[in-house]
């Protein structure tokens, strides 16, 4: 009998490290992710079902408050679009099942991968390829945006003052990682 073939996730950045004394660049642990588009009528039910209040303000993110959903974040990407990330790998598709209203949820856990850039020079390293103003005033802790890094599109999230999460498509991750590693050699701090 033929063996059932299941797609296995790939982690192209596994084991890579880069950086310097001022900045560390490491692949993030696998996480589950949801690309969410929702009409206004579905926002409240989805927030309840996912136990994360979907942010309404541009460039903001929200984190789950319950003990079970502390690892869960919702990132505002557009007026009706969010990226939900759960670093514990919870089944987000199942979580949003009970929600009512008009919405679309797509599991993109393995489409995206993430790179954590941390350290005193983190902002400078990302700024070498990202055209946005990343100063704390313009891009505070918790701010997130879809933007560019070099030639590739990323979703940038500032987790702490000197910790950034760079979400990129898995197939672009080798480029994004190499770009950051190169930038870390001589950051403009």
């Amino acid at each position: 009998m033929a063996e059932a073939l299941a797609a296995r996730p790939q982690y192209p950045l596994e084991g890579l490290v880069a950086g310097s004394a001022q900045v560390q660049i490491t692949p993030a642990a696998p996480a589950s992710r949801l690309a969410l588009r929702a009409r206004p009528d579905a926002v409240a039910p989805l927030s309840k079902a996912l136990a994360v209040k979907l942010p309404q303000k541009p460039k903001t993110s929200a984190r789950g408050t319950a003990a079970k959903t502390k690892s869960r974040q919702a990132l505002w990407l557009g007026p009706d679009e969010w990226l939900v990330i759960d670093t514990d790998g919870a089944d987000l598709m199942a979580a949003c099942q009970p929600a009512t209203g008009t919405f679309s949820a797509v599991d993109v856990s393995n489409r995206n991968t993430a790179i954590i850039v941390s350290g005193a020079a983190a902002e400078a390293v990302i700024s070498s390829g990202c055209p946005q103003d990343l100063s704390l005033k313009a891009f505070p802790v918790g701010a997130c945006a879809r933007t560019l890094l070099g030639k590739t599109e990323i979703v940038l999230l500032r987790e702490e003052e000197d910790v950034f999460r760079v979400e990129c498509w898995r197939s672009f991750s080798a480029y994004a990682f190499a770009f950051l590693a190169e930038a870390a050699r001589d950051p403009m701090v």
Partner: protein
Amino acid sequence: MLQIYCPYCKEERPELEFRHAGEAHIARPADMKSISDEEFEGYFFIRSNPKGIAFERWRHVHGCGRFFNAARDTVSDKFITTYEAGEPKPDAAELAAKSGEADK
């Protein structure tokens, strides 16, 4: 680099995140079958290309992903205003007067 105000993100973002998407306020004929070839040509191919204030569609493609409209001066390349898709077209003469004042 130009800074373009995205009416959905509600702040100025760098030009690299945006893509131009042609002339704005071109209404698609409601009944395509009944219009003449000349009318179709006008709708499909003929664009105004003015010197001065031009109304354009832009898309915040590497940001919120939304299309919006912008009034831009084709002489100075300055964005005079941007507004959400679906909003009425602002008056060109008024905008020209406003941008003239701002330059002084």
